[in-house]
């Protein structure tokens, strides 16, 4: 992939943080969707936002984007209020596919250029720098060849990548992704995850709402579990436990218990879990998360082997 078009360096990203403190949000009809929510995200992190349907994920997103005013508490980004963070183009948003009118007469290029509008004068006439950034963003998500297409004439994964490219072109410090993996195949999911990791390395903050629990420990270093209020927030390794998830989801998760299943000890590592849709979430013996890849997690494997020896 091409070098990052974002110029936020790690140094600049250090001041970057999202602070949600004591936020309570209610709708016009009186529903209190979220109450007393508090968490903090630091520069260079990918944070998963998980919870059942109606737990307030989208509400929290809308609050961080300033569409809903909290009845109580506040949200700040890099020490700024939401309104000034928006004027500084710090907040980028990748919408859920269902929110977009795909028959709209705009091309892929037009959509990505919309990411640059915040930097232009009120007439929104793109300059050479804007065009360069749009091109770089499109190439980075490998959608350059599709730039002339009307946005409806793309596959689900390609559509996702167009809006990711728009967030890249916007050079936001904080990128909010609502359900980025619905309707996306394994290959595109991997590409998106790879891109998010690069952005994390550049000091950006990504907040991802997802129902795909299996993928959370794979690429999110932070997790916020909500059910109308924050049940747990912090590093994924600490927060993403069977107990916490059981608390958040109650009985709604599909379980595959190895001790209740026919899997025996002699099966060892030859156990294979196949799934056509979402990545399965597998908890090990002591309730810790099993990862699909050992690469890059050598210390985890070693630590667990030592624990086993101790017993």
């Amino acid at each position, binding site marked *: 992939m091409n070098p990052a078009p974002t110029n936020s360096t790690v140094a600049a990203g250090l001041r970057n943080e999202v602070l949600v403190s004591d936020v309570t949000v209610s709708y016009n009809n009186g529903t209190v969707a979220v109450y007393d929510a508090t968490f903090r995200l630091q520069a260079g992190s990918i944070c998963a936002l998980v919870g059942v349907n109606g737990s307030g994920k989208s509400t929290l997103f809308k609050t961080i984007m300033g569409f809903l005013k909290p009845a109580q508490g506040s949200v700040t980004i890099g020490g700024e209020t939401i309104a000034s963070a928006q004027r500084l183009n710090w907040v980028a948003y990748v*919408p859920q596919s269902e929110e977009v009118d795909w028959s709209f007469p705009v091309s892929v290029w037009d959509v990505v250029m919309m990411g640059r*509008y915040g930097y232009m004068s009120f007439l929104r006439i793109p300059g050479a720098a804007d065009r360069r950034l749009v091109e770089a963003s499109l190439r980075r998500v490998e959608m350059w060849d599709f730039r002339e297409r009307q946005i409806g004439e793309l596959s689900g994964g390609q559509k996702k990548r167009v809006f990711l490219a728009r967030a890249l072109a916007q050079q936001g410090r904080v990128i909010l992704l609502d359900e980025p993996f619905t309707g996306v195949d394994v290959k595109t999911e991997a590409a998106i995850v790879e891109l998010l990791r690069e952005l994390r390395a550049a000091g950006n903050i990504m907040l991802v709402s997802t129902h795909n629990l299996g993928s959370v420990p794979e690429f999110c270093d932070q997790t916020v579990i909500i059910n109308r209020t924050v049940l747990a927030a912090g590093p994924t390794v600490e927060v993403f436990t069977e107990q916490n998830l059981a608390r958040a989801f109650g009985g709604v998760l599909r379980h595959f218990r190895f001790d209740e299943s026919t899997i025996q000890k002699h099966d060892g590592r030859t156990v294979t879990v196949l799934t056509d849709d979402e990545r399965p979430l597998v908890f090990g013996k002591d309730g810790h998360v099993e990862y699909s890849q050992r690469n890059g997690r050598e210390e985890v494997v070693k630590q667990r082997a030592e624990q086993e020896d101790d017993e």
Partner: protein
Amino acid sequence: MNWLSPFQYDFMLAALGVGAVVGIVCAVLSCFLVLKGWSLMGDAISHAVLPGIVLAHVAGVPLPIGAFCSGLFCAVSTGFIKSHSRVKEDTVMGVVFTGLFALGLVLFTKVESDQHLNHILFGSLLGIPRAQIIQTGVIGAGTLLVTLALRRDLLLFCFDPAHARSIGLNTARLNYLLLSLVALSIVAALQAVGIILVVAMLVTPGCFAYLLTDRFGRMLWLAAGSAVGSCLGGVYVSFFINGSTGACIVLLQSTCFLLALMFAPKRGLLASRWRRQAALVEGVPTGKRG
């Protein structure tokens, strides 16, 4: 009969000129209305201008100002009632604009006026006083200028208001701006086609263009082109058949739309039928090929 005879009359030249201006303004706005899904809003605002016209006449205020204010009042009060009750927007709109229209009709019968209700309802392009021509020209040109200058913001507002907000655009302001522009274009078009038919000017050209292209820039040109053609054609035809000018204009626009619906190269009914048949013959599933 002489085909050039309409052009010998000043009132015909004026009608053609005003028709073209009104056609362009409404066509450009129609592109936004069609994409935003605000067609009914166009209808509502246009009916709601009637009480404003009558009240302005009573108060001695220029009629366009009265019309603009009561049109905008309809849009704003619809938004308010919708967000403070459980009734859906289209229903609220139906209640509000018919109520305002009825109020206008009652007021009209109670007020001494040199205006003909028929002219307000159906427009009168033939024999427009000079002051009125200037008025229409100024309102039309101003509306067109603002709309075209801010077309990218307005398009973004229609397409993805969430993104518009996230880059710091004031979407509430854009919402009212677009409503005001619609109200202004209606005020400009009243002279030509009247209250009842003005919604056609605000919907049909955009709809026609939407069938023909996937690019917003081209959509603007196609809509404006078809609208100007229909306006000029409508004025010209009405000279010979001695029929209602506004109705002739709208009829031509509807014809354009029907033709596009049938024969549009990509989205037309015939084109999709041919594609299906060709696909069947070749034994390839329909959809994207090559």
